[in-house]
Structure formats: structure tokens, C-alpha cells
């Protein structure tokens, strides 16, 4: 398996080497996608609520729905998307080399990644933060009591750095055991190798579901870092980046306007100018992006507005049971805010 990773790395390097023959100029992802007929979307290898294959093998989750919304906006068909599962350390090479058009892989937007890796982050579809999960019988109620703890985590994420900074800042000792895949990290935590499992809060809730007895584990309340998760594209392709950003904003704007996948069909005669622009009845927004005029209509109709996507995948009525919190609309005290579509 590790050999496979090495080979993958080597191949990706080779791809970069021959890039003029394959990726071509970086400015035309939309043309490539149009010609190919579907969007190639890089997702995680299985994180419930974000990107996870269900029992029939269909991908589900917030990140999956985001890629579906992009496909709906471009092709008018949310099914015209294919998913490539990527490990944390493969993801940037995959987008750099042109293997995928977009990574929607619960990836943290950080300055280093945005400026040094040849990728651009264009939106935040989930505001997250790192936390800790421990066994309930350990008697720990706050992460400040974790002095001397052994932590299991996934390798190649911002998690390792955040944990190091947090423990040093609080003058606590720790030992870190970093696994290549989340599954092994959780399995090792489950078998007692570590006192705590640390990753993004949302993922803690998701992974807890996979444990033999979820009730025997608690997620500690502290959030030790800012983890704005969002889709990323290759740097230098502004047209494609604009599409990614505005598909997200369209789902948020739809929620702001009370437009849902159920009622959008009957909104055709709405006189609200904002809704008319969102539905493509007014203005040339689709044409400006180089995609059909009903792009936002299709995205919301086939996938839903931001609130629907959230509630369907991670919301209070799903096994994850996550409250909107930071991800509520700005009008409800959250951080989700769409620039005006006008």
C-alpha cells in the first residue's frame, strides 16, 4: 500500500514533468470539463457527513453535494460528476497535476496552502475547529487536563501542527501517533493505544459513530484551532475558481431568500428581483461565468440550498447530530454569508 503511495507520488511528479502534454494551459478547466462531459471531484476516503459511500456505493455528504451542485450548474445534471477518493497527503498533488478538477475534501484553508501549493481556496462550505475525543471513563472533561496524554491522529493534516502548538502553549506534554488513514487511527484509539483522538470537531462526531460503543466516548468542548474547510482549485484559473465560489454562494443566497429545492419550481413568477437574478430570469450571470443561465436554479433544484445540504448530511436529525453553530446564516448569528448576486 505504501509502495502504491510512493508510486503515486512518483507518477504525479512525472505528470507534472509532462504537464504541457496533459494539463495544458492552466486557464481552461471549464473547457476541459465541458469536453469531458463530467466534473472530476477529489473527496476523502470515507468521512460520514462529508464524503462517504453509502451501502449502495453512492457517494454522500456535504462535500459530495457541493461537487454535485457544480455539475448541476454546468451541465444541468447533478449526476455528471465522478469522485476520486484521496488521502490527506495525496490531495494537493492530485489537484496540481490535473487529475481532479476540484478538491472538496474537508480541506482547511490556510495561508501556506493558498500561497505556496499552486492551489486557490475560493469558498468555505464548513467552518470547523480541531478538538479531542476521549473515553468517558477516563474522567477528563476539558482538554486542559490532557497533560501527558498520547494522541492518535491522521497524518498529513493541520492537526499534527495544531496539537503540537496547543500542548506547548499550555505547557503540557504529549505523545503523537500519526496514522496514514483515519480508519487505522480510530482503530488504534479504540483499542487503547491512545488516550485521545484528535481531528476536526465535525470529524470527531463522524468517527465516533464508527466506534463499537459511541456512548462510551465524549467529544471535549474545547476548540483549539480555526479550520475553515472549503473547496480548492488550481491556481491561475480564475474562471473555474469563480464558478466554484459562486455555486457555493448561490446555495447560501438561496437559503437567505427562502428558496429551497422544493419550492424553487414554483418561484418562476416571483417578482422579487433578488430571486429573479438567482433563477437566471434577469441579468447575464450565467453567461459571465461561461455556463447556462439557469446554473443556480439547477444547483438549488437538484441539490438544495445550503441549509438543506447541511441538515441532510450532518444536521441535528442525522446520526452526526451537529448544530448549525458557526455554519448558520449570518442573519442567525453564524458565519455563512453570500456576497450579493447582482
Amino acid at each position, binding site marked *: *500500500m*505504501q*509502495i502504491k*503511495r*510512493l508510486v503515486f*507520488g*512518483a507518477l*504525479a*511528479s512525472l505528470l*507534472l*514533468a*509532462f*504537464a*504541457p502534454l496533459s494539463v495544458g494551459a*492552466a486557464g481552461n478547466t471549464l473547457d476541459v470539463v465541458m469536453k469531458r462531459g463530467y466534473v472530476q471531484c477529489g473527496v476523502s476516503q470515507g468521512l460520514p457527513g462529508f464524503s462517504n459511500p453509502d451501502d449502495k456505493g453512492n457517494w454522500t455528504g456535504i462535500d459530495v453535494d457541493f461537487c454535485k451542485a457544480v455539475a448541476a450548474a454546468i451541465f444541468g445534471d447533478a449526476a455528471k460528476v465522478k469522485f476520486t477518493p484521496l488521502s*490527506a*497527503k495525496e490531495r*494537493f*498533488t492530485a489537484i*496540481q497535476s490535473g487529475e481532479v478538477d476540484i478538491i472538496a475534501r474537508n480541506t482547511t484553508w490556510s495561508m*501556506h*496552502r493558498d500561497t*505556496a*501549493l*499552486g492551489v486557490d481556496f475560493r469558498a468555505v462550505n464548513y467552518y470547523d475547529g480541531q478538538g479531542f475525543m476521549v473515553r468517558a471513563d*477516563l474522567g477528563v472533561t476539558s482538554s486542559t487536563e*490532557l*497533560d*501527558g*496524554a*498520547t494522541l*492518535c491522529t491522521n*497524518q*498529513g*493534516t493541520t492537526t*499534527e*501542527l495544531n*496539537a*503540537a*502548538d496547543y500542548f*506547548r502553549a499550555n505547557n503540557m506534554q*504529549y*505523545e*503523537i*501517533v*500519526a*496514522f*496514514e*488513514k483515519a480508519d*487505522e*487511527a480510530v*482503530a*488504534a484509539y479504540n*483499542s*487503547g*493505544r491512545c*488516550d485521545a483522538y484528535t481531528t476536526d470537531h465535525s470529524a470527531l462526531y463522524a468517527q465516533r459513530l464508527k466506534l463499537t460503543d459511541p456512548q462510551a466516548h465524549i467529544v471535549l468542548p474545547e476548540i483549539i484551532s480555526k479550520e475553515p474547510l472549503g473547496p480548492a482549485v*488550481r*491556481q*491561475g484559473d480564475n474562471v473555474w475558481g469563480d464558478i466554484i465560489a459562486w455555486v457555493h454562494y448561490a446555495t447560501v443566497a438561496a437559503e437567505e431568500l427562502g428558496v429551497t429545492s422544493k419550492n424553487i419550481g414554483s418561484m418562476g413568477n416571483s417578482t422579487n428581483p433578488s430571486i429573479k437574478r438567482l433563477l437566471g430570469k434577469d441579468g447575464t450571470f450565467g453567461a459571465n461565468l461561461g455556463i447556462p443561465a439557469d446554473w443556480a436554479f439547477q444547483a438549488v433544484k437538484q441539490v438544495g440550498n445550503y441549509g438543506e445540504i447541511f441538515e441532510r448530511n450532518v444536521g441535528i436529525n442525522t446520526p452526526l447530530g451537529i448544530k448549525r453553530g458557526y455554519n448558520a446564516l449570518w442573519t442567525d448569528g453564524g458565519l455563512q454569508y453570500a456576497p450579493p448576486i447582482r
Partner: protein
Amino acid sequence: MLLQALVLGALVLAMVWLVANVQSNLERQNINSGFGFLSERAGFGINQTLIDYSEDSSFARVLTVGLLNTLLVSVLGIILATILGFALGVARLSSNWLVNKTAMVYVEIFRNVPLLLQIMFWYFGVLRNLPSPRQAVSLGDAVFLSNRGIVVPALEMTAAAWWYGAALAASGAIYVWLRRRARLSRLADGSLISIWRPFAMIALASLAFAAMMGGVPFSFDIPALKGFNFRGGITVIPEFVALLLALSLYTAAFIAEIVRAGIQSVSKGQREAASALGLPDNTALRLVVIPQALRVIIPPLTSQYLNLTKNSSLAVAIAYPDIVSVFAGTTLTQVGQAVEIIFITMMIYLTLSLLTSFAMNRYNARIALVGQKS
């Protein structure tokens, strides 16, 4: 000659084009390049370091830590696999039915199950059955076994250690002298002198002398449970134990087959001749059969050593901090420069393999038949 020069020229040109192309592509896509990142601060922790390391160390230090961890598990793995492999190989030829079949079953099981599964088995299978630190199995309150690994007291040398060093050196010199004397007497009149008894007596005497002069040569840093975990002492992490076990047991199965083939390649007449000369079975095996078998054994054995070293990169699956895990893994994602990092990692494995091959080839040349040397 001209053709060869042309091919070489074309190859060099292709390489230059490839490198230039990578560079221009990286620049065009605005991806950092170069090796400057090696001196930057790493910022993450590693749970097994043979040299001083902290989050403030550089990525170059991470590379060294990872390389040493790879070497540690590879060298120990090679030693264990060789010992076990030779024993199994000889056992495979035993006339004792039980010994013979046991070795056969071992070989067939271990070489036919994928290594990754074996690593996972030893890691998760064993880990799951170990107690938590608070219920650790302890040996005299000094050695503790739990799912955090084996914690043993750390040995700290005192000044008296010098006496013991001197005693060991003296015993070593005496051993060499005894061997030489035994060899000379064997060559002179064929009499076999046992050197072990005088050697053991002299070694014991010199150690006793050192103890008298220096006293206890070391002090212990005894581990104790504090909070979640043991503090003090040396921790052998479970990832290391699982990886070492899996690599040695797996490779030993292959070495056993190589040893068996090597021994069988020595013609039966050699053993019969040794027997006719009055050499006991064990001596015949050691002095007549094995030296000839080694010539057949060494080349494929070298391949197994190389395989073991390269297979150690499977470490990443169970979080053992080897070079692929901490450098081609964590460092790669922190820095994002896949081309440089994969290149450095490949070069290191290449160098390790070439060094191993070189050493084994030297050994092979030494034991080759004089007439076959070229």
C-alpha cells in the same frame, strides 16, 4: 561506439528537458520549489526519535530522525530474520518428522500471507489484548507492558563503566589469541583444542576484577505511572515491535527456503567424505557444508535484505515514524513539494540498497571459490 554515444547523449538531453520542464511547470503553477524548505521549522512531534528532536527542529532533522528509525527496524529485522531463517532452513532438512513439518508449515504460512496484513495482525491483534497503562503488567515494578508499549528502565552509565569496557576489551583480545593458538595447533598436528572454557574463565575473572575496582557501572532511570502514562525510562512503542516482528517473521520464511536450497546444492559426497574423515555431523555441517552452501545462499539473501529494508516503508500504515511516514508523509503535506521530497526519499532508498549490495558483494567475493573469482 558512436551509437552508444548517441544514445547516451539523447538520454542526457531527455533528462535535462524533464528537469527544466518540471521547473517551468512548477513556476507557472506557482508551486514552491527548491530544497530551501529543509532548514525550516518542522512544528510537529514524533514519538520515536533516536536523536534529539523537538517541534523546533528543522525538516532536515525530520529526515534524519526518519532515516534512523528506518535503519533501526531494518538492521534489527535483518539480524532476526537471518538467525530465524537459518534455523528454519536447517530444520526443513531435519530427519525428525515433527521439526521438519513444523518448519514447512511456518514457511508456507508466512510467505503466503501479504506482509501488510501480517503487520496489521501483529499491531491490532496484539494491541487489542494488552491492558491499559493503569492495569499494566509489571515485572518487579521496573518493566511495564501495556498498550502503550514496553517501558524499561533507562540505563545511565557511570564513571565505573570504563573498568568494564577495559575488561571486555581485554577478554576480546584474549579470545583472538586463544583462537589463533587453537588454529595453529590444529594445523600443526590436527589436535582440536577447546577454547571456550579458558575464555569463559578469563572473561569472568576480568569482569569480577572490574566490579571490584569500579562497583556498579550504571544507574537506572526507573519508569513510573504519572497521569495517563509512564514517565521516565525508555519506551519501546508497539508500532516498532509489530513492524519488527512482521518484517522478521515474513522475511525469515524466504531466507529459510534460500538456506535449504543452498545446503541441498552441496553434493552429498561432500558430507560423506567429511564423515569418512571422522568429522562429527555438526562439525561437518559447520566446516564443510555451510561454507560451500554460502556461495549459493549469499546472492538471493542480499535480495531479501534489500526487500526487508524497502518493505519497512509499510510502517506508515501503523504509524511507525519511518522515513516514508515522517518525511514523504507528514513533511510532504506540510510543505507540499512532492517532486523534491519524493526525489530525496527515492535517492535515500537507492543509496541504502546500493550500500547493502556493495557490502554483500564484497562478502560474496571473499567466500567464492578461488577458481571462480574473476
